[in-house]
């Protein structure tokens, strides 16, 4: 008996009991659908991260300064790093300090708790390219300039949430209060997320020197409130730097230079952390990859359960069809004819289950993509979220489901093949 006849027969016997066939393949359907959804979402996320990476530029290096941790006041000032950049212009093309300020924004008597306040220097904005080192561009007005930073000007550049929702549009020249001090809006960024509160559009830039002062004042208040007298609770300096290398190939060298410089001051590799964009990208990709492997492994349990379900039903089916097996044997079916008939039946069941699972998975993934795509885009600052499975994932899922049918169908099929013809014929 050849494959196409066995296949037709398998389809026929599946069609005679559709409900049972469907329930049998349900485990496979769910397992495959889960795998497809996971892979699609992971794939979408990776794609989004890669877009982000391209947008930020592969030459971005982030430097975080934690301090020596021994109470010492040693630090690396912005001037130190500017000097480094000047010394190695073939590697380092830009340095901007940044300070994350913990204070609140206030406008018209209302507090905005979620606004991210960054203290940066004018270097953050690359006027040649028309956007900041980390990819933000201006909608209107201008960015901070050298004079703003060196003179501690109370000016800020705001995101669209603040500009449009809080200040009601036409934000240039309006003032809002940051840490109790009025700041004038000199520029508005382009929308990069969904303009909602707490999103990437709920942010503003002020000169880093101002941000250091705000943080120092806040700490002094806290210390006073806690009754600690004397001392200012440490020195306040920048939290880190955004550095650009001249291009993506010099990023590693630039990172080395920066690390050397930082080590010279701190004598402690735990005092700072330098990471290039491509390292970040790699570790993010690795994280998503690991997560996907774990999730797919969990989904694979469902495939295993599905396989056991198929085996179970095939065993029942062999028993029910004992007489049929006896008839076939009396007509000259060899062991392998019977075995291949049942294996093909199991394989067909799981293959159909696999196809349904792939379809269901694609549908669910695209639905999930539509539902969370906007949110993801907002969280990650732009980019499109495309939850489609890779052709390889589809191919492998289909192959695995057929394989499961064959694997778990083998035992029942072999049992059928070994039946003694008279016993099988006598079976009622």
């Amino acid at each position, binding site marked *: 008996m050849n494959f196409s006849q066995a296949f037709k027969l398998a389809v026929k016997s599946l069609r005679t009991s559709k409900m049972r066939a469907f329930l049998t393949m349900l485990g496979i359907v769910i397992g495959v659908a889960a795998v497809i959804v996971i892979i699609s979402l992971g794939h979408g996320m990776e794609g989004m991260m890669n877009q982000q990476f391209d947008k930020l530029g592969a030459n971005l290096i982030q430097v975080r300064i934690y301090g020596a941790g021994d109470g010492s006041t040693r630090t690396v000032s912005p001037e130190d790093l500017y000097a480094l950049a000047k010394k190695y212009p073939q590697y380092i093309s830009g340095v901007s300090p940044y300070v994350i300020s913990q204070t609140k924004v206030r406008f018209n008597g209302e507090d905005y708790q979620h606004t991210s306040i960054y203290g940066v220097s004018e270097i953050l904005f690359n006027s040649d390219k028309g956007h900041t080192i980390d990819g933000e561009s201006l909608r209107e007005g201008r960015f901070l300039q050298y004079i703003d930073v060196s003179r501690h000007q109370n000016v800020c550049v705001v995101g669209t949430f603040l500009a449009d929702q809080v200040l009601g549009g036409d934000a240039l020249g309006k003032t809002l209060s940051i840490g109790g001090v009025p700041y004038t809006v000199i520029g508005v960024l382009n929308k990069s997320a969904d303009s909602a509160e707490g999103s990437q559009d709920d942010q503003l830039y002020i000169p880093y020197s101002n941000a250091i002062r705000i943080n120092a004042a806040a700490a002094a208040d806290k210390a006073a409130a806690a009754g600690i007298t004397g001392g200012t609770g440490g020195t306040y300096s920048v939290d880190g730097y955004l550095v650009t290398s001249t291009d993506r190939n010099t990023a590693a060298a630039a990172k080395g230079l920066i690390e050397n410089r930082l080590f010279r001051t701190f004598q402690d590799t735990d005092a700072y952390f330098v990471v290039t964009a491509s390292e970040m990208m790699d570790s993010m990709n690795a994280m998503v990859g690991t997560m996907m492997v774990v999730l797919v492994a969990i989904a694979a349990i469902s495939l295993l359960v599905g396989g056991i379900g198929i085996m179970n039903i095939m065993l029942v089916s062999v028993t029910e069809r004992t007489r049929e097996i006896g*008839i*076939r*044997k*009396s*007509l*000259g079916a060899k062991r392998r004819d019977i075995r291949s008939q049942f294996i093909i039946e199991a394989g067909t069941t799981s293959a159909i289950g696999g196809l349904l699972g792939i379809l269901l998975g694609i549908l669910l993934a695209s639905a999930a993509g539509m539902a969370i795509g906007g949110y993801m885009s907002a969280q990650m600052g732009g980019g499109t979220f495309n939850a489609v499975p890779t052709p390889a994932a589809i191919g492998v899922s289909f192959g695995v489901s057929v394989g499961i049918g064959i694997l778990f169908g083998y035992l029942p099929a072999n049992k059928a093949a070994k039946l003694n013809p008279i016993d099988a014929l006598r079976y009622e």
Partner: protein
Amino acid sequence: MGHLIEFRDVYKIYQMGTEAVHALDGVSLAIDQGEFVAIVGQSGSGKSTAMNIIGCLDVPTSGSYHLEGIDVSTLDDDQQAVIRNKLLGFVFQQYNLIPKLNVLENVELPLLYAGLPAGERRQRAVQALERVSLADKIRNLPSQLSGGQQQRVSIARALAGHPSVILADEPTGALDSHTGREVLGFLQKLNAEGDTVVLITHDNSIAVRAKRIVRLQDGRVIYDGDASDPRAVVQPADSGAGADAGEVRI
């Protein structure tokens, strides 16, 4: 070359706990090409056991069985399957058609296992169905046919592979007497056309339609000869209830 079918001192012994049931108790028998033999005997006399051995569905406990000169007991499972496929055609009391296959597909089955191409399978299956006058029902499912028609389909299936022997175990057992006669008529016709037929029955009125009768009792041949001989249809008086269980030896 010898006979088509040859039993030499065949024993079939079933071990039931401590009891040994001799279903066949030293049977020697030879059947030649073109014969129409009825194997008769009371229930439990060993008819089906004999037929299973002839049909290569079972092997003797001792003694030898040659089919077309081949010693069947030396063959493995798959080789026996090939013998069944090429040399034997079965007609069972319960028809044994596969319910989800239509008439044509049922008749094609032995040809499928013989590995014939689709065109030839179909042609030969239709021919076989024509021989039992059912060529107009090839698309029907077995459940859409009467008992007599189903039995004719099973005869067509037995014929389709051009076997050396057609084995029929109580082929009329499930049919009313009229349909039974009709089915028997087909078997006679096949024999007249040259096929060898071995028919198993406990019914004398059917057995006499064969050319030769072999009577079994308690696993032994007690008569083997012409069907027209009056002794062929005489049931020995001493066969009582004990015969039903076959001969029991402890």
